[in-house]
Each structure stands twice: as structure tokens, then as C-alpha cells.
């Protein structure tokens, strides 16, 4: 799950990571009076969306006075934002964070990621923060520091010192930094994160070390031991995606018009690829799972058809654990329950495939059957036109 900046900062606060004082968070429809703007200012007003590049898109503004902070917050709420990370689609700003601003003397990049190759957490840092690490990795890879960390011991003292020296941390902030780095690693390990990023970590004009931003992605598989996090809304998932998740269906909405129902994540991905190759575009990724029953298939149909873009539905199921005759009965029963008024293309393979195909053929429901995935994809593309 991806956390918004202020949610990540709430986590940071629990680990004693130094940050600027918060004036408040305002959601759409809430009063701007909840902001605590009693200091001298200035303040920074930040759109809470799950995309980088907010600054360039007008999602980060400096306010010199309390009145200006309220005004900017009001304007930012409900704003449509497109950044280089939103894939051309606008995001609505539903929440705005207002923090006390600080003057920045230096920016540093630091994150903790999973090094998949070596199966270990790893610190990635650069003395030059502010820009995206992807850009830096391409333009100046020599400036990136990588430091593997032991999952049980965390960041060791000598590693923290080494990191501080490598990043040219000033003597005055040295201890502050080593403590910060150790805690950042603790956030990664103890919160079961797959990414913890601070960009930028700043040294202020008055020589304080401050985490100015936060980006945390948590491991969905570990939510069972993070009950508070599990109860929070998933900002990235659409309404349909959330509904699917609740009933154990893995659904991701896409831009095309061919609805897909597949068992298994790999085969579902390959089905999208095959649809594309046949000249069409899938409307969704949908994995019904290994043990889907009539109820599950019915709901999968309902979810696919909620998307008004869908002009044809392609069902591709390789029956292993799920036998094809059971799946076929499920498809027949489900299509009776759910009014499917778009062409339905079904490709079944696997255990009891003969019986399954007969059930579909005898059902009286208009179903186009296909022998291979390629044939099914071509038929679906044709039907959607």
C-alpha cells in the first residue's frame, strides 16, 4: 500500500525522525480554520497525492502569511493535478498538508529499499538530493551510495558513520544523522515496508537536520501484523479495485475495452499481452484466484461489467485445481444471474475440459468458445469492434 506524505510522516513521528512542525491537514469539505497557523510563518502547502513531481505541477506552494496559507490550501483542494508520474491522467487533490517551512542550506537523498538480488534491505543515498533517484542513477550513477543492511541487526554503528562521512554530513549534524539513518532502517524493517524514502533530507540554514518529505510503500502481505495500517484506506485503489479486493479478487483497471477474467496472475498478464498482440486493449487485469467458485465467478463478472468501457468479455481459464466442468457451470450460472449484454468469449483448458466445453455449448447462452489463448484474443478483439 502506498502512503500519502502525511501518513508516512505520522509513521516517522513514531520513530523519532526529525521533521518540521505541522500546521494541519485539511480534507475536501473541511474547514480551513482547523489549521494551526499561530507561528510567524512561513508555511509550505502541499497537495497529498500519490505521485512525484508535485512541485512542478503546482502542488507545493510557499505561504508567507497565515492568510496566504489558508488561501493556497483552499485553492489546492479539489485541484486536478497531472505530473510526470500520473501517466497523463489527472489526480484530484483531496487532502492538503500544511507544515512550517524552513530555509534549506543542503538537500540529501536517502531511501531504504529491498535489494531483490541479494534478498536484503539496502540504503540508497546521494549527497545530492532534490531530484528523482531514477534521473540521478542515469545521469550520475557514481554519486549514488548503496549500503546493504542486515535484517536482524539493522544499520550498524560503523555503517551509519560510514554513510555520514560518504554523504559529507557536517560535524554538527553527525550524531543527529546517524541516529536518523538507524531509525529510517527500523521503519523499513519493523513496518514491513518495501520502500521508505526521504527526498529531500535537508540541513536548514540554522543547521538542523529535517526530513522534509516522506514516501512509504508497505507490503500488503504483512498487513495481518499491522492492524492499524490495514484499517486505513488504500488511496491508490479505485472503488472497483477495493470492492474486488474485499472478495478476494485481484483486479486492476486499465484503459481498453476488453474485459478479462483469468485464473493466475501470470496467465492474466499474458492474456493482456495477447489481447494487445491481437490488436486490442484490455479493460482490466483480473485474477479470480486458484479456487474460484460460482459465487466468485459471478462477482468477477459483476466487477468487470461495472466498467462501462467494456465491449466484450474474454474468459481464459486453465483448470488445474479448478476443474473445467465446474468453471463452465459457474460461467453458465453466473451469466444467468448477471445480465451480460456484451459478447462473451471463453477459452477453457485443463482438467475435464471436454465436459466443460459441452456444458457451455449446451447452455443455450451465447458464448463463443476458443481452443487457444491466441484464438480467444482474436475473437475478443473482433467482437469488441
Amino acid at each position, binding site marked *: 500500500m502506498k502512503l500519502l506524505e502525511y501518513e508516512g510522516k505520522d509513521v516517522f513521528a513514531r520513530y523519532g525522525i526529525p521533521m518540521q512542525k505541522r500546521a494541519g491537514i485539511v480534507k475536501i469539505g473541511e474547514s480551513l480554520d482547523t489549521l494551526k497557523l499561530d507561528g510567524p510563518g512561513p508555511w509550505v502547502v502541499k497537495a497529498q497525492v500519490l505521485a512525484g513531481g508535485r512541485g512542478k505541477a503546482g502542488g507545493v506552494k510557499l505561504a508567507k502569511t497565515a492568510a496566504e496559507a489558508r488561501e493556497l490550501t483552499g485553492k489546492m483542494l479539489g485541484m486536478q493535478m497531472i505530473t510526470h508520474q500520473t501517466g497523463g491522467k489527472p489526480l484530484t487533490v483531496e487532502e492538503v498538508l500544511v507544515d512550517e517551512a524552513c530555509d534549506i542550506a543542503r538537500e540529501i537523498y536517502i531511501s531504504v529499499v529491498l535489494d531483490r*538480488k541479494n534478498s536484503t534491505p539496502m540504503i540508497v543515498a546521494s549527497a545530492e538530493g532534490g531530484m528523482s533517484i531514477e534521473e540521478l542513477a542515469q545521469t550520475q550513477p557514481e554519486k549514488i551510495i548503496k549500503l546493504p543492511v542486515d535484517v536482524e541487526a539493522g544499520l550498524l554503528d560503523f555503517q551509519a558513520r560510514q554513510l555520514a562521512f560518504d554523504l559529507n554530513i557536517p560535524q554538527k549534524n553527525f550524531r543527529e544523522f546517524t541516529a536518523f539513518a538507524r531509525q529510517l532502517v527500523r521503519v523499513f524493517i519493523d513496518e514491513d515496508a518495501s520502500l521508505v524514502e526521504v527526498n529531500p533530507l535537508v540541513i536548514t540554514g540554522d543547521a538542523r537536520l529535517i526530513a522534509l518529505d516522506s514516501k512509504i510503500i508497505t507490503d500488503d502481505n*504483512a498487513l*495481518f501484523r499491522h492492524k492499524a495500517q490495514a484499517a486505513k484506506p488504500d488511496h491508490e485503489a479505485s472503488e472497483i479495485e477495493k470492492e474486488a479486493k474485499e472478495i478476494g479478487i*485481484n483486479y486492476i483497471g486499465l484503459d481498453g475495452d476488453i474485459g478479462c477474467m483469468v485464473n493466475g496472475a*501470470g*496467465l492474466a498478464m499474458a492474456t493482456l499481452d495477447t489481447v494487445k498482440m491481437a490488436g486490442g486493449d484490455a479493460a482490466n487485469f483480473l485474477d479470480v484466484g486458484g479456487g474460484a467458485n460460482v459465487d466468485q465467478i459471478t462477482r468477477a463478472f459483476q466487477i468487470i461489467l461495472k466498467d462501462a468501457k467494456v465491449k466484450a468479455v474474454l474468459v481464459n481459464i486453465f483448470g*488445474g485445481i479448478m476443474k473445467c466442468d465446474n468453471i463452465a457451470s459457474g460461467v453458465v450460472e453466473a451469466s444467468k444471474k448477471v445480465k451480460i449484454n456484451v459478447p462473451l468469449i471463453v477459452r477453457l483448458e485443463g482438467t475435464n475440459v471436454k465436459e466443460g466445453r459441452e456444458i457451455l455449448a449446451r447452455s443455450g447462452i451465447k458464448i463463443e468458445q476458443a481452443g487457444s489463448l491466441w484464438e480467444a484474443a482474436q475473437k475478443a478483439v473482433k467482437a469488441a469492434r
Partner: protein
Amino acid sequence: MSILLNNKTKMIVHGFTGAQGSFHAQQCIDYGSNIVGGVTPGKGGTEHLGKPVFNTAREAVKATGANASLIFVPPPFAADSILEAADAGVEVIICITEGIPVMDMVRVKKRLNALKAAGQKVTLVGPNCPGVITPGECKAGIMPGYIHKKGSVGVVSRSGTLTYEAVWQVTSQNLGQSTVVGIGGDPVQGMNFVDALTMFQADKQTEAVIMIGEIGGSAEEDAARYIKKEMTKPVFCFVAGKTAPPGRRMGHAGAIVEGNSGTHASKVEALKKAGATVVDNLSEIGAAVAAKLKAPKKAKAVKK
């Protein structure tokens, strides 16, 4: 010959008496796998599916001489079961469980690596995988047995149903498989593509290998380096996720394009450069293997 499993494999099932464990253990027994018992803490001394149940893996191994473990334990406890099996001296540990926290697997890998460094022979397959099958000899997993056929094509894959698809195409071409290995779709896993390719390269029965990859990570790029350097047997590849949007996890925890790494294009390019055959259309992988394996034999016949 084959890899990982054969007709001498003696297997225990962890989570034996649970719904998943019971169903699939029975399927494995029906296929002819030699399941010698199971582990369910608290149910030791009882019998299930006609096999003895033990409280601990240690007891099970001591009593049965088991050398393989098949794990169906729920996600919060599965990592511990892997370590228990390793501690009991089991050589091949296959973990089917989907949804184990990544950090748990990081800890498991650390400990398994320490055991290996100390000289213990232990191989983990999975988690979040369909398992391993050596057709006609031993099925250790949730794959439908009947789609397989004994033969000379080794198959290794990150995905379950995608593996069945490839296997079925091979069988439909009247070829068969030496061993089929599902390494799983998680970011931290036991054996990887290179480990499987190394085993297939050394295995006499295997004449060609199908490798099914997907977006995310760099396992395919690593495999490409190995193929270029060491493989003399032909390798056929498909990489799923060409059309997946970046930043979204496509079902498998490991299948996600992050930044510029783990993209479909980089994997396909690396594999092609290494001399592997990469099919764009999944439906053609069986035919591609058949064209290669059937062709030289015909050529030889002509020479005679």
C-alpha cells in the same frame, strides 16, 4: 535423470491436515508421489490420508527418512515451517503458500544461506509457487498431473497457470518434460532461474529448457548472462507483462515495474542477446520447442 525430485523422493507435507494440505496431498498420492507422512503440531501420533502425522519436522524425518518437504502452512507461519524443515535436514523444501511477508523471506534466506555456508545441502523452491513435478515419478505441488508427460524439456517459471499453459503446449506437441519447476512470483524466493538452468544444463535427460519470466526484478537478466556463458542446451523464453502499467503490482508481489528496472523490454533484449529464443506470442512456445527438438533428428535420418 531429472532435477530436484525423482521416484526415490520421500516427501512430508507441512500443514498436512488443513483443507489445502489434505486436498493437494491426496492429489499427489494419487499421482504416485511417495508421501511418507505429514506435520501438524498437536496432531502427532494420529493418521491422515493413511499416513502418519507428526508434531515436528524433526520427528517426521527421523521416523520416515524424508528428504523433501511440501509446505501448505498459512502465510503468518509459513516462513517458520521452511526453517523447521531445513533444521530437520530436509534437502528439497517446496513452499506453495502465497502471501508470506517479504521481510519474513529475507530472514529465511539469511538463515538458509548460513546453513549452506556451513555445508548443509538445502534447496528452497518458492514460496508462492505451484511446486515441482518430475512427470511419471513425483508430483510435489498443486499442478494438474495429467497435463504432464515424461520427456526431455525442462520447464522453469515464475507463474503457476502460465506454467500449465506452456507444459500443455509441450505435451500437445507429443513431447514431454524432464522436470517442471515453479520458482514462484515473490520478490524474495528460494531457487532462481540461474539455479534451475544450472541444474537443467547438468541433467542428462533434459535436452531443451522453457523459461517463463515476467516483469519485475532482474532474475531474467541474470538468467541471460548465465545462458550466454554456460548453457549449451537451447532455451525458449516468454516474458509476461509487456502491456502492464508501471508502478502497479500485477498480482504477484514480484511483478512490478519500478522506475526503469524490471521492464519487459530489458528482459527480452537481454535474453535475445544471450542466444535464447524469445516468443512474443505465448501460444507459440510449444511449437517453437518442437521445431527445434524434432528438426535435428529428421536431419540425422536424412544423412543416414
